[in-house]
């Protein structure tokens, strides 16, 4: 050992490292990625890592996007976010909103050759019903009392109590091969098998996930051979990838970088209004925020257009109701236009002529910090000093949900956003405004309590009647908007950057990327 010459060893170490990297090159597959031609692949860069490929246990948009290339549900969403049929040919809901009957499309096969039929649906639904660790279980599926096969291609699902978001849930619950569920359930989060236009190839953790065209897909069409999804968290890097062609599609396209792409003919930027509402929730049970005038004053103090310009780099729409415009039953309200005078007057009426000091919480995301600073600057205009407390996500959630009663709550304002499926108005309102949802129970961090609103929500949830629901939600929206439990800020517009040689890829209002017709031009 001692004889070994140091330089030789160093050199050896260097050579080794180079060789190892070289090997990884070979293992990594071909390096011709991003080239043109439909036999090549499309690279889609997104902002975060995929969490899980288990469609029944997914909470993040990016995982959903990737799954949607491989898996399909009985129902699905169109490009506007509204419910359409997919694997189901047709469906009906009973009047008491308890029975859901689906007629299934025929001749569909899973990627592993299993046939799609009522039995397969039953296996899927029962999986979610029975496994309490699955995310979807607690969202409607635990209300199911029975799944009845009415025929080879017809199935009926019965609920214990009405749940108005159930259709949305059926759209979310994508179907997995029953063989996979029965025999290899451990593989579900890693490599799902569905009926979608692409089938799973490989998932290199943290680096990429690749899917390949499923040639026996039941909807015929020209599609690209391969799609690779890459998580690229750094905005600057993502945009660089789009420019260099390393990525054909990037989502989200960071708005502040849009200018960089101006005049670039190779890149098309599309803008999609989203269901992401940005707001500051105000603790309505805490002094002085329990005074509606204060809350309204805050709303009058904030210039929504400036907000969109400064924080969202000019992309977005004012939040002109308690739910985004794409959401079902949305009704536009009278926006609190910026009016410093009026705001000051309201403060004066409430006894805070000289302003006061308030605290705003938010996570450590750079967009959040930007937004909080904006609020701070705007409220300064009316004499309110805002202290920004940005907390790392886990800590923040502990701080908020650690309070067991409204009295214990230290939260004053929270800069946050909410997003639900466009079709799911329940989820866009109930967890946020129902008095049962006050923390720690759920996300009503405004500690908003209005018995009227509560009862309207309950009523809307228990009926299958759309007109009735529309009516109730109109009342809910106008009442809450006037009560101003939030500072209503904006609704994001989603930006997608696509290289001009790509077609058939679009992003829906929830941020899901649809690739079922993806191809090179």
């Amino acid at each position, binding site marked *: 050992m001692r004889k070994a010459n140091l330089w030789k060893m160093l050199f050896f170490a260097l050579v080794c490292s180079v060789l190892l990297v070289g090997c990884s090159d070979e293992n990594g597959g071909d390096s011709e990625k991003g080239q043109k031609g439909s036999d090549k692949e499309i690279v889609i860069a997104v902002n975060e890592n995929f969490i899980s490929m288990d469609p029944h246990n997914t909470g993040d948009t990016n995982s959903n996007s990737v799954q949607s290339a491989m898996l399909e549900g009985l129902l699905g969403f169109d490009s506007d976010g509204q419910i359409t049929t997919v694997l189901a040919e047709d469906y009906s809901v009973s009047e008491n909103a308890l029975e859901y009957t689906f007629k299934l499309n025929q001749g569909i096969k899973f990627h592993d050759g299993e046939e799609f039929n009522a039995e397969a649906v039953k296996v899927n639904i029962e999986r979610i019903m029975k496994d309490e660790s699955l995310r979807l279980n607690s969202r409607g599926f635990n209300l199911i009392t029975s799944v009845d096969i009415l025929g080879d291609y017809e199935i009926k699902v019965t609920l214990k109590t009405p749940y108005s978001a159930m259709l949305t849930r059926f759209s979310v619950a994508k179907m997995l091969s029953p063989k996979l569920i029965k025999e290899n359930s451990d593989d579900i989060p890693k490599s799902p098998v569905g009926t979608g236009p692409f089938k799973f190839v490989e998932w290199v953790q943290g680096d990429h996930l690749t899917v390949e065209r499923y040639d026996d897909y039941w909807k015929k069409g020209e599609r690209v051979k391969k799609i690779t999804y890459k998580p690229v968290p750094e905005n*600057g890097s993502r945009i660089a990838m789009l420019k260099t062609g390393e990525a054909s599609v990037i989502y989200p396209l960071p708005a*502040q970088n*849009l200018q960089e792409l101006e005049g670039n003919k190779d890149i098309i930027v599309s803008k999609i209004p989203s269901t992401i509402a940005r707001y500051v929730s105000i603790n309505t049970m805490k002094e002085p925020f329990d005074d509606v005038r204060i809350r309204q004053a805050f709303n009058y103090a904030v210039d929504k257009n400036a907000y969109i*310009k*400064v924080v969202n780099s000019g992309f977005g729409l004012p939040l002109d109701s308690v739910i985004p415009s794409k959401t079902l039953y949305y009704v536009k309200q009278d926006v609190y236009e910026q009016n410093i005078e009026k705001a000051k007057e309201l403060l004066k009426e409430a006894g805070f002529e000289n302003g006061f000091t308030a605290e705003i919480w938010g996570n*450590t995301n*750079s967009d959040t910090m930007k937004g909080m600073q904006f609020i701070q600057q705007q409220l300064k205009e009316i004499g309110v000093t805002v202290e920004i407390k940005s907390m790392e996500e886990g800590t923040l959630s502990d701080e908020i949900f650690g309070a067991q009663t409204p009295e214990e709550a230290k939260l004053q304002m929270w800069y946050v956003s909410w997003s639900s499926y466009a079709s799911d108005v329940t989820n866009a309102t109930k967890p946020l405004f129902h008095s049962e949802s006050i923390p720690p129970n759920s996300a009503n961090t405004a500690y908003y309590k209005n018995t009227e609103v509560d009862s309207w929500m309950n009523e809307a949830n228990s009926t299958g009647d759309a007109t009735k629901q529309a009516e109730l939600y109109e009342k809910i929206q106008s009442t809450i908007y006037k009560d101003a439990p939030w500072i209503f800020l904006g609704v994001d517009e989603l930006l997608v950057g696509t290289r001009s040689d790509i077609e058939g890829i679009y992003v829906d209002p929830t941020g899901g990327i649809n690739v079922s017709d993806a191809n090179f031009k």
Partner: protein
Amino acid sequence: MEFTSTVTEKKQVVPKKKYSPVREFWVNFKHQKTAFFASMFILLLIIIAIIGPSIAPYDPYKPDYDATLQGPSSEHILGTDEYGRDIFSRILVGTRITLSVSTSSVLLGAIVGTVLGIMSGYFGGWLDRIIMRSSDVMFAFPDLLLAIAIVAVLGPGLNNVIIAVSVFSVPSFARLVRGSTLEAKENTFVEAAKSMGAPHKRIMFKHIFPETVSSLIVFVTMRIGTAIIAASSLSFLGLGASPETPDWGAMLSMGRDYLGTASHVVMMPGIAIFLTVLAFNLVGDGLRDVLDPKTKNE
């Protein structure tokens, strides 16, 4: 006695220039051109830190939504940021925060590390083993997790950033000081003090500590650079100072989204950080050459 003549012997010679240690240090340090220049730069920074807010041309917090992300111009010599705030003013005002966060965190870390290091080196034995093994664990422990834990427990804010950054530097200081303590302990004057019956505390702080000071000073100056970068990395991960604070690190990390479109938002604080860290490191290098007995003598 005959020895008294030792005193008179020098009468006919020119009085020798024997400097006090401080004076001698200064004379030597002035010969270190780069380091001297760098220390002048730091002095300038300190002056800016003191008077920055009063010489800033604009309110560093005041937004101007009509003039966001403007490049350098005669009006805003370093341009404006995403809220239309004057970057030059923010950098001037931010000097104080940046310098005080970095220096105080390093000093805090240095104090704790020094005490641990001296005790570890002086007493040895199980105490030494415990302190050194813990510092090993600290080294192996990802800084960030530590930072999150600290910020999570103490909440966000500048003071806690200082604590977090100083916690990172404690093990390094402890090791450094332990090393020089082990060396200093070998000095006969330490043994002499022991033989006189001097208490441990006196030996550690009167006799051993001064021996570690020169390497400490060198290391402190270098760590200040590291601390500025560490604090800015915390900002990068959103764990730093309150976002409106014109802390350079926070400016850098908030501005990074605009690198492609309005690069000055990132470049300006980046350059400020770079120059400052560079200056501290150069001063540290110079100090090392002057103070370190190992490299001092020609």
